[in-house]
């Protein structure tokens, strides 16, 4: 079986795949031309200048122009490839603003998915066709990596932070999902499927699996149950920052610096509260790292996001 016989094993199922394959096959072509070129030249030299065969053996005296040429030409080609690759890379890093967020928590050795509307799944991810999807991912233990070859996307999933990837699926079907960062005993079993469904089928799937409470509502419940509202709520007697609409605001810290209250900031404020102290408040918040799972933190983040007022909350907190 020729190598091309295997290519049907790698479908093109996202908007990402085709431009990337263009670059890939161009590189393959370039490399093949250079490799075949060098092999042919080598072969010809080996035949023509083999020992005992009469041939012109006058050597080139000034080799500098030749050498400068084959220094400069590869350099220029490499820079061309670099720029091309960079444009594609930049695109892969910037999800469109209308992308829908789905949360993924990795742990040894499974993928846990939380949809904003409250559905949960393990080792499968249902997504609608043609809608940009942004995955916000974190790990509960070691480093994992989320890889869907058919979409040509991959991103490591780290225990201390949220990493993102995005894609827009272009073909319905089931596609393999792998963990590609070695994560221990059952690393090779830590896989699953991404199931791309037509929007209507997807809506039906959401309905069938509805839990009744959205992720934000689950977070709101946790916010009360875990005692967050006792200090951060409107009627609290403890001097703690009001968290209504905090998501996306600029927060001033006690060391004089400022941060944007993004996923990472809220996560760390819950799990590692001593890391960043809001200016004007005492460092009295306890750590919830033993009390909350990463999935629960994601729910609380979703809840805090939902408290954003209006449409342009991002710079509301800016004063100076």
């Amino acid at each position, binding site marked *: *079986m020729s*190598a091309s016989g*295997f290519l049907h*094993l*790698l479908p093109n199922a996202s908007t990402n795949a085709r431009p*990337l394959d263009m*670059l*890939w096959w161009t*590189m393959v072509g370039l*490399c093949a031309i*250079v*490799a075949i070129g060098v*092999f042919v030249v080598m072969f010809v*030299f080996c035949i023509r*200048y*083999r*020992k005992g065969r009469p041939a012109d*053996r006058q*050597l080139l005296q000034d*080799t500098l122009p030749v*050498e400068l040429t084959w*220094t400069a030409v*590869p*350099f220029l080609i*490499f*820079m061309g*490839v*670099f720029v*091309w*690759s*960079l444009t594609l*890379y930049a695109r*892969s*890093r910037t999800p469109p603003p209308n992308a829908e967020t789905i949360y993924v928590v990795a742990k*040894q050795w499974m993928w846990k998915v939380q949809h904003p509307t409250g559905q949960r799944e393990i080792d499968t991810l249902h997504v609608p066709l043609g809608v940009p999807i942004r995955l916000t991912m974190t790990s509960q*233990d*070691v*480093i994992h990596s989320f*890889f869907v*070859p*058919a979409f040509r*996307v*991959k*991103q*490591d999933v*780290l*225990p*201390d*932070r949220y990493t993102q990837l995005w894609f827009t699926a272009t073909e319905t079907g089931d596609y*393999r999902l*792998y963990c590609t*960062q*070695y*994560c*221990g*005993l059952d*690393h*090779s079993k830590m896989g699953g499927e991404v199931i791309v469904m037509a929007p209507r089928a997807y809506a039906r799937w959401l309905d069938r699996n509805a839990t009744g409470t959205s992720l934000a509502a689950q977070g709101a419940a946790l916010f009360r149950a875990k005692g967050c509202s006792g200090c951060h709520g409107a009627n609290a007697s403890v001097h703690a920052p009001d968290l209504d609409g905090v998501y996306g605001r600029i927060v001033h810290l006690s060391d004089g610096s400022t941060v944007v209250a993004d996923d990472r900031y809220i996560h760390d404020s819950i799990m*590692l509260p001593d890391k960043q102290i809001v200016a004007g408040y005492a460092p009295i918040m306890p750590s919830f*790292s033993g009390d909350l799972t990463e999935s629960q933190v994601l729910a609380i983040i979703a809840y805090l996001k939902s408290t954003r007022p209006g449409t342009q909350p991002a710079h509301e907190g800016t004063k100076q």
Partner: protein
Amino acid sequence: MNATVVTPGLPELEPPRSFYTHRSGLLGWLLTRDHKRIAILYTITITLFFFMGGVAAAMMRINLVEPQGALLSAETYNKTFTFHGVVMVWFFLIPSIPATLGNFLLPLMIGARDLAFPRLNLASWYLFVIGGCFTIACLLLGGVDTGWTFYTPFSTMFSNSNVILVAVGVFVTGFSTILTGLNFIVTTHKLRMPGMTWFKLPLFVWGMYAVSLVMVLATPVLAMTLSLIGLERIAHVGIFDPALGGDPLLFQHLFWFYSHPAVYIMILPAMGVASEIIPCFARRGIFGYRFMVYALIGIAVVGFLVWGHHMFVAGMSATATLVFSILSFIIAVPSAIKVFNWTATLRRGRISFEAPMLYALGFVGLFMIGGMSGLMLAAPALDIPLHATYFVIAHFHYVMVGGTVMAYLGGIHYWWPKITGRLYSEAWARFAAILMFFGFNFTFFPQYVLGYLGMPRRYHAYPPEFQTLNILSSTGASILAISYLIPVIYLGWSLFRGARAPDNPWGARGLEWQTTSPPPKQNFLARPVVQKAYAYDEPAPGTQA
């Protein structure tokens, strides 16, 4: 200088007192300060390590014949690839050419009697053996399941295996590398014989010099990183594990700051070997000698600045990705220059195809393919799908096995008559070289395809659609294994039964060919004559032609 007159070029039937006969007995070897004997001690040691690592590779390839894993449990498989990686990287590839051929040839090539610090050289070997035996014992008795990369926080807080012990073993061995590098640097600076100026040095010496710089500068970072792992694992100091307040990416930065230059520790000496063999069998000077020197140094320096290309999907910033990508493309330029120059060296030569030449040509071809697949990985957009798949496995095996191991064996065959004073079976050697080239491509080319299709590395079991390509690869691996065993047989035979080698069987230039085969303990009985590097257009010193 010694007054004994030796006629170079004429075979001596029984070299009067070679370094083998100088002092016999086991202690004469174990307490030797002779760089040539130490080189042979290293050769025996790393050959054993190579075959141990090879057995691990064979077990993996047998396992991967079946999608669900044909031979090993997941736990054993994980420990097997860790064993393979740790042993092959630190106990075979890194010492391979420098500690054996480099140790033997560096003083001979510059007309010195020994390395600058002979005792330190012996101490390096002892550190290497102690570190190696300790590490391998820990890997066999209990094992380690982290992979040779020891990524945190898995290695520090989650793995229940001998991580600390193996880290200690590698730590100790690292000092052997550092001390060897130091020894080579001082030797190259201080012990060149009169007339042997920097730009008359053979490229093999330049390769050793460049690699020594990398060894001395990079290996301490490995030692620090392994110490930090120990600190976190034992004392729970939060360095890498976020649960303790650490940063897991910090480990990857530190690890690759060592381990990427380590890749150049493996390939620079191989480039040096190829640069000796190809001019010899093409009977002309290397094309663009100075460019070749600058390329070696350029690779050694820029090699320190590209570590981040291992981390394009690790969660690094876009700016860092951009910088590491462009530097990775830039380092490909000197590598390309070298391939073109080796090819151009063939032009208008008088080429013959003895076994060392076949190995060297194989090296150039495989290194080129490996290098070009590296370009794809240097492009962040393409690295996203290819990272951590079999494409990466194929890429670095083309460079390290197709490149370094082919060049190492080419060097062993080229200098074998000089080192042992014996000739080997040319026909068998050519056969093994061709079989190795074939077996290598058969093993690793399917892995490029597997990687492109998305098969992740370090998988004990895999989806059934990848089975055909895996069987192809495993079949190739069995051919490759045979091609590695054949040289053991005919070289072993040569050692005891081979014909006596003349002093310069290939008609090569370079000081090492002006002394007897094998050389006397003090290396030269008469003062060698310094020519320009690769003076194939001039008659060899001492001949009338």
